[in-house]
Each structure stands twice: as structure tokens, then as C-alpha cells.
């Protein structure tokens, strides 16, 4: 209740200071909105990360343990993220043998590519949607043009990894702030 009272007082202060002329308000609506961090969806059919848009079709890719798969977004114009970023990964993944390690990278591009953070996941032979997250140590990143999602095989055996992007948006990562 105190919070609401404080918001009310702040609003009244705002109104009293901003008002300077003859326009008066005759209708008012108040409400709350939660804004979440952007979501970057993998779309292997276009070989890119879509910002806040799920792919329209399914497409899977494969790569071996010695390879990696990297996709990135369009240019978002050089914006600054003034918070400590947490990358919340999701991916639909499987491999041709059990318990294989796959490393997920959350990356950004300013004038070159940087890793925000990475995390390892264990992959089975059954297609599974895995979720995990990692935290960046940076308190802010500036002049960001693109975000990237990198999948890197960590197995020492000869293993093939499969990742699917689909219209459910199973393969993605979302930015959040580290609480």
C-alpha cells in the first residue's frame, strides 16, 4: 500500500511540475507492465537468429564433435545494455550416442565477437528440449550490433550432434538481468 501511495505522490508531483499551460487531462488510465528481455530464436532455415520472432518452419542441422554451429542476429543498431546479463538457453537437441557434452555460447558483436558466457549441457540420443543459463560478468555492454548463439561439440569421440529450430521456438536464448 505504501508503494502505491508513493507512486501516487510521485505522479502528483510529476503532474504539478509538468503542467504549464492550458491543456488539462480529462481521462486517465493506470496500469503495470512487465517488460522481459528480448528473445533470440534460432532459425536454421534462414541460418540466423530472429529477434522476438519464432521461425515459421522446422529445420535441423548436424555437426560433428570437432565442429561447431554459429548463427547470429541482424544488426540491432549499436545499442547499450546497461545491466548484468543472464542468458537463458533453450534448445531441442540430440546426438547419435548417449551423454555427449555440448557447449552453448551466448555472444555479442560490437566491432568484433565476444563471448558473454557459456555453459555445457549433456545430450542424449532422444530429441530433448534442454534449458539452462549462464551469467555474464560484465555490468554493461555497449555498441551492440548483433547477438550470436554458438553450439560447440565437446566430445572426444566421433559424435554427431543434431539441433532443431522449429515454430515452437524451442531453440533460443533470452536475455534477463542477473538478480
Amino acid at each position, binding site marked *: 500500500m505504501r508503494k502505491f501511495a508513493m507512486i501516487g505522490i510521485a505522479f502528483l508531483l510529476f503532474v504539478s511540475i509538468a503542467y*504549464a499551460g492550458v491543456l488539462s487531462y*480529462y*481521462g486517465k488510465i493506470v496500469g*503495470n*507492465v512487465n*517488460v522481459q528481455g528480448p528473445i533470440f530464436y534460432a532459425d536454421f532455415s534462414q541460418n540466423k537468429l530472429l529477434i522476438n520472432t519464432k521461425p515459421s518452419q522446422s529445420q535441423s542441422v548436424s555437426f560433428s564433435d570437432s565442429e561447431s554451429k554459429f548463427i547470429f542476429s541482424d544488426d540491432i543498431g549499436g545499442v547499450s545494455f546497461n545491466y548484468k546479463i543472464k542468458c537463458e538457453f533453450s534448445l531441442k537437441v540430440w546426438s547419435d550416442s548417449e551423454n555427449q557434452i555440448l557447449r552453448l555460447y551466448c555472444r555479442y558483436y560490437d566491432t568484433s565477437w565476444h563471448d558473454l558466457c557459456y555453459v555445457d549441457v549433456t545430450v542424449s540420443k532422444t530429441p530433448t528440449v534442454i534449458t539452462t543459463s549462464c551469467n555474464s560478468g560484465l555490468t554493461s555492454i555497449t555498441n551492440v550490433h548483433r547477438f550470436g548463439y554458438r553450439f560447440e561439440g565437446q566430445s572426444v569421440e566421433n559424435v554427431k550432434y543434431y539441433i532443431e529450430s522449429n515454430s515452437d521456438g524451442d531453440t533460443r536464448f533470452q536475455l534477463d538481468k542477473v538478480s
Partner: protein
Amino acid sequence: MKKLILFALFALLIIPALAKAQLVCDETSYPFRQCQVIKEFTDVVAGNPTEAELNFVYKGASWAPLVVRINVSSQGYTFSENDFIGYGLLTTKAINTPVSMNIPLKCVLPPVSFEQTGDNFASPLPNNFTLYCYNETFYIVMPASNNTLKLTLVPNVALIPSQFNFTVELMTDIGVPTIEPEINITNGFGNLSINPPYEKLEFYFNESQNLTVKTLVYSSIFYKKVPKERPFSLIFFDFRNSTPFDGTVQVRYYFDPDEIERNGWDKNNIRFYWLDESTGNWYLVDSGVKDNYVWANLTHFSLYGVFTSLYYPPVQQQIIYGGGTTNYYYNVTNVTQNITQPVEKTVVERYVEKAVCGNGICEVGESCSNCPQDCKCPNGYQCQEGICLPTPVCGNGYCEKGETPDNCPEDCKVTTTTTLPTGITGRIVSIATNPIVAWSIATIIIAVALVFAFKRKIF
């Protein structure tokens, strides 16, 4: 006990529905009424748009300006200028004619000035983000219209994930100014010619000083409230944009005696009132009538209205209302500021309830066709079937009455669609709540539940 649990569950289900955010309109005053929220801003992913949709009715007879102020705040959040972008679309439809317009609104950050009204909105407070949404045409709400306003906000993709509090205000002018002069006061005196040969305004400051008084003069305003004892307005002066002055000033408004007589108003009962915006009421100013002017001693600049009552000749009259007849006696020589109260109240209430043509207020039931003196169309507009419509200007982007695809193809395309930035469909999750309504309803339901429980001796 089972009933109580069921009741509590039911209450939990209905509280959020009842407590949805509502658009509150000041129903006692013009111009915007019957406000409804069709769609609220909802939870959103940064970079995606969130939309709100509102309906309101405007019953005035002149085109009204609309400025929408959107204020965003969040505890402990420091905003930057790119945190949100916004835009809007006003669909204004005439109530009685098949005329409709889609008018796009652009949203800008303050400081912003509106030369049409003289408003100058400064930067918001720290930790607040404010947008002013308007159209360059400014007067965009059609007379006697149903209106739908769609507002879209797009949080910057880099916005720090948080909860934000939104306030959306529909703002409009108090009226359409007749003139907007600046009056130069030299050695404590200044004057303004309003409508020769009679109407003028004079300033007599008690201290010799030089200053400039910025004035907006209105013949009528949208504001519906009037002083009950003097419900007929002559003119309005808005001095709120003027700098404060030293001492006191006597303002004299020379009225048109012919207009007073023509309207059946009481010349001796004309007085100045000032509008207290915090209460929305008019308050009598120290004022009186001498010859053909009304004087008022002012100590500050504000929004002033000049009001009077009807003139009653000193003879027996019959006022007929309802099904009966009542005799009242008047003596005009006794008419002062405290004119006979019981009579005055009865008469005033009768007139306030009904539209009175000629009282300077464009009321429900009046239009520019049946009462042009109250509902006159502003410059550039013409009265058509009771609505002030803009004089058609081919090439202004609006397919106006009188324009067709043949005589003005650039305005009247066969398929008219308003192009707005399209966004990605966002996730719609939450319900914005009105804490006061929610608190009230929850208290009532808890009280009922407790009474029920005690009656059943559950505790």
C-alpha cells in the same frame, strides 16, 4: 467450511476481473465522457510492441484537440531517452453522420511546446519517462463523435527487464481561443480591445509597473461546470501563462450591453469567477458592475470566467416546470450578489439540466446548426448537418466531406488504409490492476466472508 472455501475461491477469481485498470473520465465536465478501456498495455518482451485501446465520447460542437500523455515509472529505474518509442491512431467517428477519420499520432519526448495552446511541457522528473502523443493538425477530435484511440509502445530491446507503471492521460484544451493577445502594461495600465466598439479589457495595477500579460480569450469553453448562481458565461480570460505581478490589479471588462439584453441576462449580476483546477469549481472573485463594465480585483493570474444570471423584471412571473405552476416575485432593485436564494436555485437547476442556447457553453443537444452562438465553428471549419467539419482542402491527406475520388484522388483513394509501423506479435500475459478498486472489492468480500463465517460459527 466447504462453502467458505468455495466463496473464497470465487472471490479470488472475480477480484482480478473486477479490478482491471479503468479509464477514469471526469464525467462532470466536458469534453471526454463515457471512457472505456478496450485493451490494456500488457506484459511484453523488450523490442516488441504493447498496445492499449480506449474508447471515449466527445459531445462538443467544435473540433477538440487531443494530446495523450504517457508516463512510465519504475522503482529505482533510471530512464534514458530511447527506452520507449510510441505512436497512436485516433479513429474519430461522427455520432450522427457516416463521417470517420483515422488520424495518426506521433509521440515525442518533452520538452514539447504547443503553440496552439501556449503549453510548454518541461522534461519529466528523474526516474520518469514521458511521451506526448499528438497530431500536427492538433484539433483532431470530431464534434459529436465516438472515438477509439489505439496507443502502441515499444520498449527498447535493451530495456532492463523490470516492472513498469503506466499512466495514460487524455488531455485537451479548455476551449478554442478567440484571440491570444499579449497585453503590454505600462506604468501599471494596459488595455485590450476585444470586440469593438464595446468589448475591451483594462488593467489598473495598484503599483506602477511594466509587464506583459499573456492572455487567452475564449468566448466559450469545453468545461461544463458553471457557478450555480450565475450559470451564463459571457467570456473567459486565461492569464495562467503570465508571470506573477506585485500587489493587486483591477481588471475591467466592458461588455456588450446589446448582447446582454438579447440573451435576457442580468447586467447587474455579472461577476468574475476563477477556476480552482484542484476542485474543478468556480469561485467568486471580489467584483461588481459599474456602468457597462464589470470590475474585479485580482491578486494573482489564473483562469477567469465572467458569468451572470437571467434578468427577471420586477413583475409577477410564472415559471412552469414539471406538472405544476409556481408563482415567484422579483424585485430587480434588490438583485445583488445574494439574490433571493430559493428562487435563484430553482430557476438555475431547471436551466442547468437543459441545454440553453446562448449561455456560451456548447451543451448536449446543441450543435453548430441549432445554436451557432454557443457552438460556433472555428476558423477553417464549416457547419454541416450540425458538425463543424474542416473546409475541404484537397491534398491534406484526409478524404473530407465534399471530396471524392474524382475531384480529389490524392485524398480519397479507393482503399484507404493508415500505414503504421507493424510490430511482432507480443506475448499477452498479465492484467494490469487498479489497486484502489482491488483493495475496496477485496475488503468488501473479506468482510462478507467473515460475517458469513461468524454466523455459521466456523471460528
